């Protein structure tokens, strides 16, 4: 017959807590052999000692022993007395705790490995083992009527059972394996007197000789907390901390690392996600983004529109980086109201990820995939994630969709601008890259080769490569052999309200007013500010006006009318108000789509755009503008002068812009819904599959 696990409960006052604690231990028992050892440390309230004696004399489902200290010796010595009086594994259990169903069996199971020294469960008040506040609130654990058993059932059901390692156990409820006790002895009663730090000291001694400490993350033990030693707690903690840091030089850095890596982030995320019931019959997509979904960029707005458009069929979660890690935000739809939104922080490196494959980012994604079920993962942007998702998704059995919104995968300098100046076209000769990457990205040629090798090795992880233009796909094909069967061309759609904002260009504005050309977008050379400045300068002798709408990040010519930042939702109104007839987009880099181009078309404005990339592709297909080479500002100037002299050409192009079919994002959503479905799904395609393409006229 195996040696029982002894649950040692040192008692010193707090009768109500003691009654509840002891009652819970005998009530729940265990499948493993168990005994309860209550040690009264000369409690000052006589009723406590009386109760303990009476409790020991009663019949219980489990063996109960009672010891009395003749005089008060303190928590640490009391525990050591208990350790000496036992032969097997022990659990040190605070007298202000309440255990729950199955608690000991699971903790014993977690202690099965020989190198485990301690096991600690989750609790509502217990250092690193404290469950999230949302769970505490959900079960009223901080109130007068905590729903302890309900919480324990919830934790047991929702837990991922990861049993993460931690630096030290926590003493409110800590299983100590006899092997470790035999090697290390008990607590250091000489040093730690009344308590606070003795269990950490034990655990660090154990770690020093190779033992581990585990959190049993499917077990919940309630801890009333704060009562032990009352007001002296704070002082005790401080004293104990000083001793520990003095003894163990590795403790501080280990603590810091544990705060960063947060071994309980994933178990806690699983609990938080389980608080809200998601309809398991609904599909869910995990979206990987490079910034907060609430940001104002085109990618973020597009994603929000897409999620909203697919709410009838898909729930969504979004994984995005923040300074201290990665946030997972759920968006679960129940009915017509706003989605259930919950955010959880997962481990990650502070600041920008700059390794080729960031291990922490990969582990985080794997953990996210573990905490919930996803039918598909949609990568929108890998910046700040490194290439980790491509690795982490190797074993994912759902659909992986990757939207190529910029050409980061082709080159870490995703602008594809040689020295941030001229379009590079993804050179054949890597010596060109060797002259560009160091100043622009702090990378060497070898890093690029490794980068492309890493991407190339995982190309087939992606089931569907989505491009918003043929030219974007053609740029990727320069660097990688993508399976043509996996390439999807899906235009982004308008991210502003097309129905509201659509308008023709007033012909009188074109014929009856000075020519005003609007440069829309970030005001820096990457978007063509250099070209705009030169053109503005050279047109100074005319009535032609050059305007800029957007944030300035470099100096504008004094001849440019500066308007500042704008809200793209009302760009058409702003262009009307300002009297802009033509929009100018002379960026030297190759756009993959061009949201501003769409917004200009919505406003009925023709566009002068770069002669390569998606702008050129869309302008040539529609006739709603003209193309120019940003390397040739004189040609831009010549075109603008010619338009000024021959206004009917502006009217022609404006009419072409107004005739275009411009679809909102919602009308493209059915394409994504099809991509998210697994090959064996038999559901019919969502309605709306027959919407015409942008190039077709409206009539």
């Amino acid at each position, binding site marked *: 017959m195996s040696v029982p696990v002894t649950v040692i409960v040192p008692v010193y006052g707090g009768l109500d807590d003691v009654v509840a604690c002891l009652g819970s231990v005998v009530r729940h028992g265990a499948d493993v052999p168990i005994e309860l050892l209550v040690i009264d440390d000369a409690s000052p309230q006589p009723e406590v000692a009386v109760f303990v004696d009476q409790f020991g004399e009663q019949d219980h489902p489990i063996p109960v022993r009672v010891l009395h200290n003749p005089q008060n010796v303190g928590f640490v010595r009391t525990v050591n007395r208990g350790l000496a009086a036992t032969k097997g594994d022990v659990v040190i259990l605070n007298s202000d705790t309440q255990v729950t169903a199955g608690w000991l069996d699971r903790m014993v199971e977690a202690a099965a490995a020989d190198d485990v020294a301690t096991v600690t469960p989750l609790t509502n008040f217990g250092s690193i083992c404290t469950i999230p506040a949302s769970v505490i609130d959900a079960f009223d654990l901080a109130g007068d009527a905590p729903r302890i058993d309900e919480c324990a059932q919830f934790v047991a059901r929702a837990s991922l059972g990861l049993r993460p390692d931690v630096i030290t156990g926590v003493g409110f409820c800590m299983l100590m394996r006899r092997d470790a006790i035999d090697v290390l002895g008990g607590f250091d009663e000489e040093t730690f007197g009344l308590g606070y730090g003795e269990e950490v000291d034990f655990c660090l001694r154990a770690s020093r000789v190779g033992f581990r400490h585990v959190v049993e993350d499917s077990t919940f033990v309630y801890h009333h907390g704060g009562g032990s030693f009352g007001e002296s707690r704070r002082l005790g903690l401080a004293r104990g901390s000083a001793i520990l840091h003095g003894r163990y030089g590795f403790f501080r850095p280990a603590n810091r690392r544990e705060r960063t890596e947060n071994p309980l982030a994933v178990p806690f995320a699983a609990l938080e996600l389980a608080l809200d019931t998601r309809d398991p019959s609904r599909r869910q997509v995990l979206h990987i983004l490079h910034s907060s979904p609430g940001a104002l960029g085109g990618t973020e707005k597009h994603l929000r529109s897409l999620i909203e458009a697919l709410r009838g069929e898909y729930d969504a979660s979004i994984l995005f980086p923040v300074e201290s890690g990665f946030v997972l935000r759920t968006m679960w739809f129940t009915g017509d109201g706003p989605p259930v939104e919950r955010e959880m922080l997962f481990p990650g490196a502070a600041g920008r990820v700059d390794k080729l494959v960031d291990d922490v980012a990969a582990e985080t994604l794997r953990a996210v995939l573990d905490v919930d079920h996803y039918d598909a993962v949609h990568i929108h942007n890998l910046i700040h994630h490194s290439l980790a998702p491509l690795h982490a998704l190797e074993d994912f059995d759902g659909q992986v969709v990757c939207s190529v919104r910029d050409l980061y995968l082709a080159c870490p300098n995703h602008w594809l601008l040689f020295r941030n*100046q001229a379009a590079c076209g993804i050179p054949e000769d890597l010596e060109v890259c060797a002259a560009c990457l160091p100043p622009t990205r702090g990378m060497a040629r070898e890093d690029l080769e490794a980068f492309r090798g890493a991407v190339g090795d995982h190309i087939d992880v992606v089931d569907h490569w989505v491009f918003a233009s043929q030219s974007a796909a053609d740029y990727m094909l320069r660097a990688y052999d993508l399976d043509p069967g996996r390439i999807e061309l899906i235009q982004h759609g308008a991210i502003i309200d097309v129905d509201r904002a659509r308008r023709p260009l007033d012909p009188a504005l074109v014929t009856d007013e000075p020519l005003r050309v609007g440069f829309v977008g970030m005001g820096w050379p990457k978007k063509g500010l250099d070209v705009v400045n030169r053109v503005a300068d050279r047109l100074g002798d005319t009535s032609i006006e050059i305007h800029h709408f957007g944030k300035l990040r470099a100096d504008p010519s004094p001849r440019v009318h500066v308007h500042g930042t704008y809200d793209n939702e009302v760009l058409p109104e702003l262009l009307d108000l300002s009297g802009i007839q033509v929009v100018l987009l002379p960026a030297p880099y190759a756009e993959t789509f061009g949201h501003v181009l769409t917004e200009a078309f919505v406003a009925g404005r023709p566009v002068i755009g770069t002669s390569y990339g998606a702008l050129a592709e869309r302008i040539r297909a529609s006739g709603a503008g003209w193309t120019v080479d940003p390397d040739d500002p004189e040609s831009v100037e010549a075109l603008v002068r010619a338009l000024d002299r021959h206004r009917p050409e502006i009217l022609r192009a404006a009419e072409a812009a107004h005739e275009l079919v411009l679809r909102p994002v919602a009308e493209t959503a059915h394409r994504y819904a099809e991509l998210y479905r697994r090959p064996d799904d038999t559901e019919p395609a969502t309605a709306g599959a027959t919407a015409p393409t942008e190039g077709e006229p409206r009539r």
Partner: protein
Amino acid sequence: MTPVDQLAPGQSARNHEARVAVAGAAPTAGPDGLHDATSDSRPVFPWRPLVLVLAMTDAPGEWADAVALVDDLQDLDVDARLALPSVPAERSRTVRPARSSESTLRTLRPDVVVAWDAEAVAAAERWATGLRTLTVIERAGDGADVDTVSWRIGRARGRVRGQFGSGAPARDLVPLVHRLAAGPHPEAPDPNVVIREPQRKWDVVDPKLGVHHRPSARTCTYVIGDSTPPASRRAAEALAGHLGRANVDVTLGDLSSPALAATADIVLLQGVAGDSAARDLVARRAGRPTVFVLDENDIGADGRLTAEAVDLAGRCGAAIAPTDAGRDLLRAGVDRPLRAITVAPVVAAERYRALAAAGRDAVPSVHEVIAWYPATDEPVVDDAIEQALRAVLDAHPAVRVDVVGGGRQLEGHPLVRRLSTTPPPARAARWAMFVTAGGRRPRLRVEPATLTEVGVLGVPSVVPAGWAGGPGRVRVERPEQASSWEAAISHLVDELPTRDALAFEAAAAAECLQRPAAADALVNRFLGWIDRGSR
């Protein structure tokens, strides 16, 4: 279409006509025969992909296919040109051939070269140095296939990125041309060449928003008639303030001081249609900029301009309206030559700053306060709103209503506060939402200033369908039904995230369209329009 023999070498008829339109005169065609392309051959308005069909190996009398290809491509909206080593017997309908030469290629700078023979492929590679985007489609075989040639790093064949058989129709070539014209550059930048001149540092850098091209000073008299409604008068004063920021010295006055008006650089006439003094003033100004400002009183009950307005606007020859609907009324209703633009009402700069500050600093109210501006001209809708608000108040104990102006709506309700005028911005900024149905003049469709101002405050609005939608606004589809209003208002009361999102949208849009810099842009446009009309 211009006959081909009148074109410059390498020029297309379409391009020639564009040059004539721009220059106002036909350029000389140049000597007969085959010559290098000239700068006249470049497209004036480049939007079609520019393709040069280039042959180097002479084959006299056998250029029919090349000529046909060029003509067909022209018909398919590809700007195709032709360069040959000898004069073709067949005449193109659309282009005059140029001589196959490096000069021709570098002058035309095509997006794509369709190489008629192997020597043309080699020539294109040789001559195109520096033309980094130029790609080549080579003619290969007699079949009808058109295909790409891989540009994958390690497998690319220089600039050659497509192939076509002699039997391939032009329409099959067009998609490939478009694709290659937009694709990645075949020629990398030269690391040893300075790509661009160093960016010039401007001597004067004043990125202050708005007008910073100070036009020369001018004077303006803004004549406002006695019958002009208060809201229109306030809008006029705001416009005057913004004109002042553009170095226009504005005097607000009436027709009792015609001398000042007679000599001002610009005169604006509002609310004086039918006044003979206004007509006399226009006559005295003899063509100097005199602008009719459309007012709601200029529109009759039939929705048309009054005869007086037609007359005065026609005499002025220039008019502004607060909305596009008003502008269109002017253009359609005045039977004399008339230039008309929309000059939307603007918030005065100081008022905007006060509103924006109040919006930024707003502290949420303990109660959800709904602001309601009852209308005097929409009684059916107002009744529906009143019923809806009663129901909302009954169902939501934390809701309060501020009734601003109006009559006896919600009279005596304990949770309703009555205000005679719009409260100060700090108070209004705490409103949870703004509800109104009135003030929309169907003829002019001018939105009430309050609706604009609550947008600046970041307060979402609930308005009837049929109004212009916009960021931060919820439109009620059946405004005559109380249940529709109740549903919309209750939704905003209950869903704080939705309300917050609408508030953000309203504030962002208002900042873009109502801040002083936007008004400056409007004024800049107005003055440019004035100047254009003065030419």
